[in-house]
């Protein structure tokens, strides 16, 4: 890309996408990991302590994948939607199921 193409608008695009990658991916990672920990606990596969630990350890991998996804999606609006809609779904599902007890 030539330097003339680097406009202010472009810089905002990059900034917004970076924000999506950092904050949006963190939200999605958190929600998905919480849901996983809830499912592991409620299904009796693991006690709550190990479930929280295991889901967090897996979370780092999820986070990496989410960041890459954020940078690959074509439009910026889609980037945010792709991250926040699944995050909201996972989050509400986890909240609805709950830790039990």
């Amino acid at each position, binding site marked *: 890309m030539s*330097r003339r193409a680097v*406009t202010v*608008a*472009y810089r905002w*695009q*990059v900034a917004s*996408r970076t924000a999506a990658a950092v904050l949006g991916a*963190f939200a999605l*990672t*958190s929600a998905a*990991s*919480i849901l996983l*920990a809830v499912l592991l606990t409620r299904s009796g596969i*693991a*006690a*709550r*302590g*190990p479930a*929280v*630990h*295991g*889901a*967090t*350890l897996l*979370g*780092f*991998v999820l*986070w*990496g*994948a989410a*960041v*890459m996804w954020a*940078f*690959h*999606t*074509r*439009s*910026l609006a*889609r*980037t945010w939607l792709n991250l926040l809609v699944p995050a909201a779904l996972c989050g509400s599902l*986890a909240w609805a199921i709950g*830790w039990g007890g």
Partner: protein
Amino acid sequence: MSERGFKGGLRQSMTWLHTWTGLVLGVVLYFMFITGSFGYFHDEIDRWMRPELPARTALPDTHQMVERGVARLAQRMPEAQAWYVSMPERRAVQAVSIYGEPKPLPKQAAGSEPEPLDELLDPTTGAPFAGVRATGGADLLYRMHYSLHYIPYDVAIYIVGIATMFMFIAIATGIVVHKKIFKDFFTFRPAKGQRSWLDAHNLSSVMALPFFIVITYSGLVFYTYEYLPSVKWAAYGVGEQADKAMESEQYADFKVAEPEPAGRAAPLVPITPLVAQAEARWGAGEVAFLMVRNPGDAHARVRIDRRDPPGQLTRRSEMLVFDGTNGALLHATTPGRSSGDQVFADVMLALHEGLFATPLLRWLYFASGLLGAAMVATGLVLWTTKRRQKLKADERAAADLRFVERFNVGIVAGLPVAVAVYFWANRLLPEQWEARAQWEMHALFIAWALALLYGTVRPVARAWQEQWWAAAALFGLLPLLNAATTNIHLGSTLPAGDWVLASVDLTALAAGLLFGAIAWRLRRHTPRRAVEADAAEGRGALA
């Protein structure tokens, strides 16, 4: 990235992400790889930096060393939250290391945090070694790879954490970008500018790829809940009470040894019979570590840990917990009873630290760490070469390109110079000076700052070459300086077969030769007129 997001395919978007995360966090990652690599020779470097320590001798019985450590702590810090006594490591420094953790200040109390007590004791006398110079040693050097320096610990681990997460991204995107990993592994096209740098970057990245993946991921595991606290918050809430609730579910074993103090005084039970019990279970010499929690309190606990078996990927595998007032055995861990998540995390941490490694594997760890530094460095140089080659004949380089070119010199070649200065400072600063340990580290950072400055005032090609010569001289001459200032030089350590000490001198010599070879090569590839033209234009000609 185009105006409307990415038009290109996966490789284009991942190339963009790889390039920019690498550039922005390259400095931190390079620093982490270089300083962290020294951790694999922690014991050797620590011994080298304390030349006054006596030669290795037969060690007294474990219970004697433990008693001496506890006695010293009781004398120096009777009012403590915890005392820690570590037995001499298998390699290098033969010292009993003690640590006293002061009682925490009551909440909202005025005054600064009380200082912990941190000493190395002579195993045969139980007193601190006399006449040993103060030094940050290998500890201070390698701990910077996660706690940095001059920056509060709580801030530093987040800077390092962000860099590590993006390292993770850089690896993943690098693999996606890189189509022909196997074929390119056997490709090196020297002296072809950008192509050569790309080949060098690919080679250093792929050669130790499994190491990079594991070292990066496991680095995150050290601070699992600091970096990703949301699951913890969702399950237990936020705050100290919530953290305690989680720990009691996850680390029940360890919590047995750490009750709240009762607030009533009670004398501590004699330690020797407890050590004897542990040795009866595990065998003589198997005790690695002893902790006394709440000494002098009715809720005193004594925890004894077994050495991790050599060559096995375990951590803190076995321990005994005793009541510190009557010596009753409260808890004994059974190996192999941890939950799967804990085993996984322990294996990751053990892989990261490499304490299990035999000498050959230790060298591979060290070499892989330095390959990581080479990977980051070649990536940084590639960024500039690529942009410089795209310039038209009469086009002047943009300010950002010139900045990165100059910055790279001071970062990539400057840090080895600075680390060498750290070792020189250890030998040259006055031995009795109280602030010498701090000034060893100041010397490192002053040297690095000067190297960065130097890169901005000299023509770029010249600056590279001269800084590599400086690194070559400082490392190559280190064994001579050592011979001039101590009696643990190669002339005495080689005939005695003391490889712990000799290996430090020999490695410095090898590093000197390596840096000298780089400087020599740059000399051949920067003809005089290119350098002069470069000086006239103020641009680099490293490619």
